[in-house]
């Protein structure tokens, strides 16, 4: 009996061992415990690991490709398409609803808006609260200004504090851009310009949305913390498709429907996506 029992034990152990020796079923998955999609059952890493990374949006300005920064304010002369010699004293603009489009059809949405002020270096970068997911991307969208739903009078304390409001009798909400400066008129005399953009007033109490929704196709891969550059070519505001002569339209443009819509038209070629560095 004792011998039989021992034999049985040996057999069991042997059977157990032989079962163990069978090649295990391959389980594909991400094997990095630090990833977002770690699969503890996986025994073969299939390269599917995804990670959360931080995004930074960098806003840069240029004039036909030449960088424009705070030091250029009131100092550097630019020649616009119409031949006006201009200096810029102040440049502020609002960008909102920045979205990164993933190849799988999902999106990464940043909730922050950003008031860029050329004279305030810290306003040139935005560090969104939401992180980005590593992987393939196909495009970037954003709004210049606020879309209709977001453009609510008085709703944003920091923008109120920045005196960024657009007058109620012009449709309310907020400015989209303030570019102020001086140009030489036809007589060579320095004249001011106030290139301010926001909701367009058609007539008393009748307003038209004037923001611009940008949708850039761009294939890129996020592997690490990334800085995404949004570029403004200031010269385009005066150029394409409307050649903007400041001798004709320089001030009192906020309530000028035609001027507001022409700014919106020209705005279409002002922005582009620059470097994505990581």
């Amino acid at each position, binding site marked *: 009996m004792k011998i039989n029992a021992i034999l049985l034990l040996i057999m069991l152990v042997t059977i157990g061992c032989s079962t163990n020796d069978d090649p295990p079923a391959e389980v594909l998955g991400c094997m990095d415990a630090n990833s977002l999609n770690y699969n503890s059952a996986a025994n073969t890493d299939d390269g599917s690991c995804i990670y959360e990374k931080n995004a930074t949006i960098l806003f840069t300005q240029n004039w036909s490709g030449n960088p424009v920064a705070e030091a250029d*304010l*009131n*100092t550097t002369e630019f020649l616009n398409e119409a031949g006006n010699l201009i200096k810029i*004293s*102040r440049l502020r603009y609002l960008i909102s609803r920045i979205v990164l489009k993933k190849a799988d059809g999902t999106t990464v949405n940043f909730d922050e808006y950003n008031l860029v002020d050329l004279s305030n270096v810290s306003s040139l970068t935005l560090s969104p609260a939401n992180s980005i997911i590593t992987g393939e991307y196909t495009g970037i969208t954003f709004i210049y200004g606020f879309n209709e739903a977001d453009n609510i*009078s*008085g709703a944003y*304390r*920091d923008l*109120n*504090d*920045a*005196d*960024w*409001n657009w*007058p*109620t*009798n012009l449709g309310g909400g907020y400015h989209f851009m*303030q570019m*102020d*400066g*001086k140009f030489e008129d036809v007589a060579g*005399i*320095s*004249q*001011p*310009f*106030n290139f*301010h953009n926001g909701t367009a007033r058609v007539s008393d109490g009748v307003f038209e949305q004037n923001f611009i929704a940008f949708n850039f196709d761009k294939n890129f891969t996020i592997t690490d913390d990334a800085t995404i550059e949004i570029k403004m070519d200031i010269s385009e505001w005066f150029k394409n498709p409307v050649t903007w002569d400041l001798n004709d339209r*320089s*001030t*009192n*443009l*906020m*309530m000028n429907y035609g001027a507001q819509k022409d700014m919106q038209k020209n705005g279409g070629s002002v922005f582009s996506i620059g470097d994505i560095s990581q």
Partner: protein
Amino acid sequence: MVCKLKQFQFLIGALAVLIVVGCSSNDSTLEEVTEQYTPTPKPLTVPTILERLLPPPFIPADNPQTEEGIALGRKLFFDPILSGNNTQACASCHKPANAFTDNTRFSVGIDGLEGERNSMPIFNLAWNRDNHFFWDGRALSIEAQALEPVTNPVEMHNTWENVVGSLQDHSKYPELFNKAFGTKTITKELAAKAIAQFERTLISANSPFDKYLLGEGSLTQQELNGFDIFMDEARGDCFHCHGNENSPLWTDNIFHNNGLDAIITDKGLGNVTGDPNDDGLFKSPSLRNLAYTAPYMHDGRFATLDEVINHYSEGLVYSRTIDPLMKAVSRGGVHLSEADKADLKAFLLSLSDPSFLTNPNFQDPN
């Protein structure tokens, strides 16, 4: 005898232990008091209109608002002990009845000398987040600002060494500093902190226009017309520098050349930054409480609001650094009609807050 001696030694020993224990526990109590003493926090009471529309007030981390600090600051603000000959307090040129400015073009210091700029009114400073104070922005905090008039030779003409000595020798101040900051050792930094705490409590947001916005009061048709002119880019265009119904500080707290002079004699911000593009730039003052703050401009050149409105309407003068927002400069200004001027003035006066002048918390406690 031996036994008695032993008993005596024991008693001595026990006594020693008791004393040591007593002393040490006494010491620790003292230490606890010193370590744990904190003055009573007293956060600013933010009026509804400012709370609804603006970010919270800015309070520096190293100078929180406290009951004892504010009380000390208030006492210092009204006390001529700060001046060289004990004749002038901060409040001499920053009077509650004038929304904390005075009614002269240039204030006169203790030696009878005049300054070169108009005394600035003091209110809603905790919302000046850029933290540039004075007409030319040279002080980078309220605390830094508060240090300057004491030593300015045409103002209080004293030294801080002397002020600190006077305060330290005073019968009450050492204890008041102790209550406010946990030390009887007075320094100019602590004095400035206390004054800044008091100044941050000077909040004004109870004008007829505020009540109108809150639905608690109405405005006259003339005041409403004036507001339209204020907000109209082709007429007043005041709002680009002076706020609007959703930006209720009624100043942008930044610096502009508003076309006062063809030749800049006072460089203002340009003196501070050294940048010639800043020459002739001065801080936009708030339009609140204009009823009490005449004369106007950094140099007090305009005695009345009519003169101010006339300046923007037809008195603008070109200079190299003039702000582009002074867009009608080639015509001298926007040329408002007389009716528009009267309406605009009526609106501007609706931003004045009489309750600010008489708030009992803002009066001389001495």
